């Protein structure tokens, strides 16, 4: 990258963050301006460093949800890197990493869903025809860990580095190979099955209610002007104009 190009990309980044703040419809200085948006503003003027993010996490608004109940720190970091490629930061706003999708995934895999408790697990597991749905015995939590491990193995084979150390374009190449089922995971499971779990969990981590650990400060919702879980839209639904409402989470229903 030439110096000129670098400068341009920094400028692009700045103006795009501004667009996001404008689009989100939240007034700077208003009560609703939460920590994440605040930190974006700060980051806008300084270079983004990891230590800054960590500092942010230890401020008085620190979210006790941000802790691990399933992953090791390294697994967590690989997950952060992977979800960010599925749903990257861009002009619209933060990516899945900043939205805490990896925290969401950690919590989901630790719970009953990670252990497939409501899935049919009886009988023999045969190879499925294309239209019969997956027939693998491996649990979601184990499939995910096997996938993370394979991401690293495959990254080392292709680029001689762990997944999280790769350039974004290299990470995309690895994920593309996984999505196309080109890699075999533990127990001969196809990498596409892991990829589809990763994709699903990333979108859930971006858009599920923040009580599950992701969708940090509802920024996933604000990006697409989604108002969260409000109780009624009788007026809005009939209006010819688009009406942007500030998002509300389930927490706002606690008084009912």
């Amino acid at each position, binding site marked *: 990258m030439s110096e000129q190009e670098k400068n341009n990309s920094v400028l692009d980044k700045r103006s795009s963050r501004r667009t996001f703040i404008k689009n989100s419809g939240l007034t700077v200085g208003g009560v609703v301006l939460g920590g994440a948006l605040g930190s974006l503003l700060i980051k806008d003027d300084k270079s983004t460093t990891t230590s800054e993010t960590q500092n942010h996490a230890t401020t008085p608004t620190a979210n006790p949800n941000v802790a691990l109940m399933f992953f090791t720190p390294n697994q967590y970091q690989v997950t952060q890197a992977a979800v960010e*490629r*599925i*749903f*990257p930061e*861009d*002009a*619209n706003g933060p990516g899945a990493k900043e939205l805490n999708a990896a925290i969401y995934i950690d919590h989901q895999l630790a719970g009953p*869903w990670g252990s497939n*408790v*409501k*899935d*049919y*697990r*009886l*009988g*023999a597991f*045969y190879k*499925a*025809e*294309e*239209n*019969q*749905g*997956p*027939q693998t015995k491996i649990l979601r939590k184990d499939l995910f860990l096997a996938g993370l491990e394979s991401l690293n193995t495959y990254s080392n084979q292709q680029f001689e580095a762990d997944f999280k150390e790769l350039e974004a374009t290299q990470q*995309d190449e690895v*994920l593309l190979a996984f999505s196309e089922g080109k890699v075999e995971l533990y127990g001969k499971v196809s990498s596409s099955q892991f990829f589809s779990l990763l*994709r699903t969990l*990333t*979108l*859930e981590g*971006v*858009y*599920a*209610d923040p009580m*599950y650990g992701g969708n940090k400060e509802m920024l*996933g*919702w604000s*990006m*697409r*002007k*989604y*108002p*969260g*879980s*409000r*109780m*009624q*839209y*009788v007026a*809005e*639904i*009939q*209006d*010819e104009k*688009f*009406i942007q*409402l500030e998002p509300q989470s*389930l927490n706002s*229903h606690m008084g009912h």
Partner: protein
Amino acid sequence: MVTKLPKVPVVVVGMGWAGGIVSAELTKAGINVVGLERGKDRTTADYTMGHDELRYQHRQELMQDLSKETITYRNTVSGKALPMRHYGTFIVGDGVGGAGSHWNGQTYRFLPYDFEIRTKTIERYGIEKIPAWMEGLNDWGLTYNEMEPYYDTFEKMAGISGETVELWGKRTNPYPTPPLVKTPLMKEFEKAATSLGYKPFVIPAANLSESYTNPDGISRGACQYCAYCENFGCEYGAKGDPAVTVIPVAKQTGKLELRTHSNVLELTKSGGKANGVIYVDMLTGEKFEQPADVVVVASYVFNNARLLLNSGIGTPYDPKTGKGTIGKNYCYQVTAGGSQLFFEDREFNLYGGAGALGIEIGEYMGDNFDHAKVDFIHGAGIRSTQYGDRPIAVNRVPAGTPNWGAEFKEKSIKYANSNFPVKTQGASLPHKENYLDLDPEFKDEFGYPLLRMTYEYTDNDRALGKYMSTITRKIAEEIGADIIDTNEEQGPFNVNKDSNTHNTGGVIMGSDPEKSALNTYLQMWEAENVFVVGASAFPHNSCFNPTGTLGALSYRAAEGIQKYLKEGGILVKA
């Protein structure tokens, strides 16, 4: 060990719309009913935290727990069926209210054509119009005019909001409440369809357009367009749900003994009749036998067929010979042929909506258009809906966009509020090799065989979908959008991808005991004290959502049961 309980007049298996309606009607008439429901009891208080997309839609909070039972599936009779291990296509209800708690509420009547489909098709096009594989296509054994009073009763009970549609059968009364509102996208459809010469109407809804008190004295408030409707319970009680309508009415009589967590395993029988049922308490594992004079099986399409097959009641259908009836004429629905519109600089308030909010045309339904030059029969509703787009489930992007990464993110956000569909809901007609039977290998938690489904879309489905795609395209172009993507082909059926919840058939009604399992009171020809209630009774599936029709049939069944308790015997001469 099985504890034998004292005999009761009527035992009802399943407490959805079918079981709820039958229980309400019988208890109102003074008859004691024991209601057995495998899931838990529910009220609107259960939905205080109801606007949780993850929990209700993606973790299937209100649905059957597949670790206990599922179905197995194969595309062809020669394939090996494998279990649906997690949810995809068939989301099956569980608990008091059944799927009636988390349905959308689109509430239709079937067409006069549907009830006499064989006769009317032959009359207009000749017998050649019905291909050999569709031999199971039959009249229902009663006409639309005979069904009309039951439809009327169902609509009044649930308070259906709608407008009279000329192209449908005659109504004795208008809908009990006016139609839902027209949103800007619905007005776009309306304008385009009208200018093309069609007569659009607002979809009839069980989401109340205004507050309403039904003939049983149940009062409910109006829909708030909260958009957490399909897959969710309604915290307002605005959505017609058995748990806020018929079941409280039955409870109030003091004649309903509702036993939740009671999973029926089989019916017991002797001498051509059922003696009662065996069920297990899902919390303690204790087993009970509940004898009854009449057994009402209302456990949804899948378990209606499975319970009969597992109990050896009725003759199983054999696709090779075409003989037998239990499992016959399983039908689904066709949803191919839709067009998706994307707009560059128009935004709609898509976060709001209701399960049945939408607008539709009827010109391509049933036999409302000439089929002489097309290679299919029946038709489809063509409609634009606004259910409310939730962000995990709905990320519509123009065709060719990758489904992850930078471009996906950008486009899914760009179009999040700038798209809507013109889609189809097409009829599904019986194929002799589309059927239900018992799986030879896979079992439920208690060791009973699972239901095996053999199903593939038919030539009729594919031709119908293709034809409808030209119509949705025409309407979409008339509306005008920056991008229009039209899906022309009906692909193969996929148990984890297809997303229609309208299963029908397997225990069908008719006038001939050789060809049907039930008469028009839903009484079994082969076991006179067994009534099998639900969309399982439909000999084919129409281009409408099924519940209006299964609700109407439930009222008719309730009438039949009362008659049977008085007179005994088969209620209709074969």
